[in-house]
């Protein structure tokens, strides 16, 4: 007999321990296990192929002679430029400035978006008043805010952060609101039966249940924040700072196409890396709940 617990002896003629254990075994889904390496391979090769295809296409266009190579250099020129770039301290200094702004802007947006999302999702009056307003804000191209932001904050970092927050916060708020709206009523009822009310119910049941949508909102919020930040760094040149945007603009002024493209690749890679982090969190959250794959 596989299990022998204290409860066993109480009703011996019906205690169906082995039946229970047997049924549990039969009911247990045996998931096919794949090795980490093969999983990594299967997710990686389509991505690498796409990158290779894009590079080939780029090289073909350069070879076609559509534009002179000092305007449109080939991948080899750009990547050797990039290789020289990443070993300089000035480059990492720029990355540091930009990433600090991104982190700060996103953090502020996270707090504001989450608080607004929590309030709107819990109050039907606030929702009727501001619900569509938040969505409206989200559809507005963030670049439109810059003239106003410059008026408000002059050419300072605050102007950039202002727009970054305006771009990201609505997406985060909407993610949370959508998540809370779609919490199964049965789980809320179960939480209430267990004695959770008010803030405890929100924290212990509603918020965790809404987490997958909230994480999607964060992911989207990051995309908006990153775009707004890059637009901001090109438009709002803060004195004595050499952010990635400033360096990109500088490369254009100098007509240094390889450098310009190298910075664009850097910006692309940073965006993708952060997005991948959110993607990993998203998958993890879904996997523990048995959602998707």
């Amino acid at each position, binding site marked *: 007999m596989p299990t022998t617990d204290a409860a066993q002896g109480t009703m*011996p003629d019906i*205690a169906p321990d082995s039946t229970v254990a047997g*049924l549990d075994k039969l009911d247990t889904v045996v998931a096919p296990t794949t090795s980490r390496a093969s999983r990594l391979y299967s997710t990686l090769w389509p991505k690498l192929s796409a990158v290779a295809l894009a590079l080939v296409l780029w090289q073909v266009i350069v070879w076609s002679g559509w534009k002179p190579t000092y305007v449109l250099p080939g991948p080899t020129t750009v990547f050797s430029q990039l290789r020289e770039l990443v070993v300089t301290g000035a480059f990492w200094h720029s990355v540091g400035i930009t990433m600090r702004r991104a982190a700060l802007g996103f953090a502020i947006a996270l707090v504001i978006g989450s608080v607004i999302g929590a309030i709107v999702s819990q109050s039907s009056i606030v929702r009727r008043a501001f619900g569509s307003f938040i969505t409206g804000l989200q559809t507005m191209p963030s670049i439109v805010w810059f003239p106003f932001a410059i008026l408000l904050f002059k050419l300072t970092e605050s102007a950039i952060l202002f727009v970054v927050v305006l771009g990201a916060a609505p997406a985060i708020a909407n993610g949370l609101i959508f998540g809370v709206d779609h919490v199964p009523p049965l*789980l809320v009822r179960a939480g209430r039966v267990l004695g959770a009310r008010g803030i405890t119910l929100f924290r*212990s049941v509603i918020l*965790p249940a809404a987490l997958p949508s909230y994480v999607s909102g964060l992911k989207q919020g990051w995309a908006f924040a990153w775009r707004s930040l890059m637009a901001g760094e090109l438009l709002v040149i803060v004195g004595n700072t050499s952010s990635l945007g400033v360096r990109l603009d500088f490369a254009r002024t100098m007509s240094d196409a390889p450098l310009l493209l190298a910075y664009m690749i850097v910006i692309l890679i940073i965006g993708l890396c952060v997005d991948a982090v959110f993607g990993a969190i998203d998958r993890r959250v879904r996997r523990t709940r048995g959602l998707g794959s």
Partner: protein
Amino acid sequence: MTVASAPVPTRVATGAPITIDHLSRSFTSGTTTVAAISDMHLRISPGEFVCIVGASGCGKTTLLNIIAGLDHPTAGSVDTGTGVVSLMFQEGALFPWLSARENVELSLRLAGMKGRADRRARAMELLGLVQLTDAAERHPHELSGGMRQRVSLARALAQDASVLLMDEPFGALDAMTRDVLHDELERIWTETGVTIMFVTHNVREAARLGDRILVLASRPGRVIAEYPVDLPRPRRIESPEVSALAAEVTDCLRTEVRRHADD
């Protein structure tokens, strides 16, 4: 294992009595008012296992919600003493982001139990009671329907309730799993002495488990018949005695359902 010599323990009824007086609940939407429950009376003794059967519209969910304190009566009163009333759902309603153990731990925490380590130990004890020690770290989606219901039962027991309300808890399970869970539930009921109010569509299940079967009429819901079940425990669902009683209760239900055909 010494099967024949082990004594059947004497049951200590620690559950609370349920007293329902002139209970009515109606729902108003616009100008129409629908009575879900009308003038219901019910006396349930401490530690009693009462099964409730009824066709659709008998107000069973409303009744359970009111007893559990999730809804309020329009008129009349419900008294369940000072103890905790727990409610177990048909779908289990486990929190999918928590493992089986964490689901039980959350219930303990919400019930006011202090100390993480103590909660953990008690959760494992409760999972042992429903024979799920090995599945403690699994999440609900990794459990079968029957296992989920047992976690759900452990979670309800974690509240240390004096009244356990069960809303068709085994309705979605296959017959074999259900039979096993009947034995499990009976054993746990014997050990804990809790008062159980068990709603089901399955009349045999009611005859298998209950000390008493109450038949509810539909629209509005009220008690129309009562069958004491004085068959010795443990019973088998396929035994002739259980079947005979089930047939009797089914006839009563049929008559009630036919009455609505003439409405």
